[in-house]
């Protein structure tokens, strides 16, 4: 049983997120970053390091936010300096919807 010698096939974050169920809120983003504070406090680098869903990335010194990928754990908020990140839960019924959990 089991077949090949390798472990579970390596996957990328987008591949892993693709198996999840998401209801994207097109009207309201639940994440807002303060670019200036993200830069000066190191919050930008910290939230990129801790987010398991690659919601945050950096391009030309700016923090980009892909809120549709968010798993809603709140880890980014836990490492953010005061004011650098506004993070709340998405509106009721939107966001990730775990089928296993």
């Amino acid at each position, binding site marked *: *049983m*089991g*077949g*090949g*010698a*390798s*472990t*579970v096939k*390596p*996957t990328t*974050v987008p*591949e*892993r*997120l693709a*198996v*999840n169920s998401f*209801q994207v809120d097109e009207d309201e983003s639940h994440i807002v970053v303060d670019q200036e504070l993200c830069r000066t406090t190191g919050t930008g680098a*910290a939230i*990129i*390091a*801790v*987010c*398991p*869903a*690659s919601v945050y990335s950096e391009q030309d010194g700016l923090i980009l936010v892909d809120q549709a990928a968010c*798993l*809603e*754990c*709140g*880890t980014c*908020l*836990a*490492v953010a300096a005061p004011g650098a990140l506004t993070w*709340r*839960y*998405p*509106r*009721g*019924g939107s*966001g*990730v*919807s*775990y*089928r*296993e*959990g």
Partner: protein
Amino acid sequence: MTSDATEPDFDVIVVGAGLAGSVTAYRLAERGLSVVLIERGDVPGSKNLSGGVLYGRVLETVFPDYLDEAPVERRVTRHVTTFLTPDSAVSLDYSADGLAEPVNAVTVLRAKFDVWLAGKAEEAGAFLMPGVRVDSLLTEPGPDGAATVVGVRAGDDELRARVVVAADGVNSFLARSVGLRPKPPTNHLAVGVKAVIRLPRVDIESRFGVSGDRGAAHAIVGDCTLGIGGGGFLYTNTESLSLGVVLRLDDLLRSGHTAIEAFEHFTQHPGLAQYLRGGELIEYGSHLVAEGGYPMVGEVAMNGMLVAGEAAGLAINSGLTVRGMDLAIGSAIAASDAIAEAVASGDTSEAGLAGYRRRLDESFVMQDMRTYARAPKFLERPGMYGPYGELIADVLHHAFSLDGTPRQHLLTVARHALKRSPVALRQLISDGWAGVRAL
């Protein structure tokens, strides 16, 4: 609903249909109180995620037949703790029939389990309101001048109650919004990153050495987290595995690694291949974990509001077991008894709700939190996540590898291994003693 704004709509508003919230709602509705259970997910459980082992004896005191009724995955009769190094694994493997009679722990998948539990609250008469995000608390100055929680606001709607229960999870936005609980420091928090891997029942049973409805829980430390404080877990569900890492945030930030790198390093570790091969990823999730232990509990009550479950910092990582769900249920029992008493007496102020903290303190919840109060500090000791696993592996390598050289007593082998290791004997003794005291 009532036209008089000051008359409560319900006796109790419970925010969050996780274990703490649903059990609180169930027990209060059972006693005839009017209860609304508000949940931001479309379905209870759809926002909830755990590693997956529920030490369920406390749930049995609420639902004696939960093992037959609830969608539990497997009954855990085998606990394996493994130190991984890049090329070896040393395990402590405990399996016992005694863990099945009575059932000590079960694996659960929260999206399935929590919908059952919220259903029990509904059956008992609680009004379930899913798909609603509570935006803020309604507060008024109380008789003593201090803020009193009188309800919640969700969008344009306001609901009032005599008591609000903040069972809104580890981020605890409600308690934070009124200054009851501060934002925890990063050494009190960890990020859990988890995959659910589908695997045929027959493979689970042969690979994990279990059969029927029995299952195994593996805790893994060492190389699996790239040296970051925390550990890995691998639990058997009925037809899937729960696989993940838990990484302490202060250490993760210091390490220069990302949570994603640590997760991928763990899931691709050669030591796990024998369990995972051929498996299919069916979900990827994460959860912030309260790991501060006793010092993180702090304030859990104010005028008109109680905080329960992980919102109150109730979680224990002893190194061998990681617990949160049983503590959430324990806090729900304490909260519902205290609320029933306060509502009956007509005093739902902080003083009227003081029975919550007293009951928590008397119950296994705070007793265990105190017992393991030193565990978080102990587990912050860096040796736990690298050198110790390598040291043990080195000793065992010399014990089992018969290479033709004359044998030495194990103690001599250990002394030589310790000399090769970066671990100092003084540190080993210090950590060993701290471990005995903490755990």
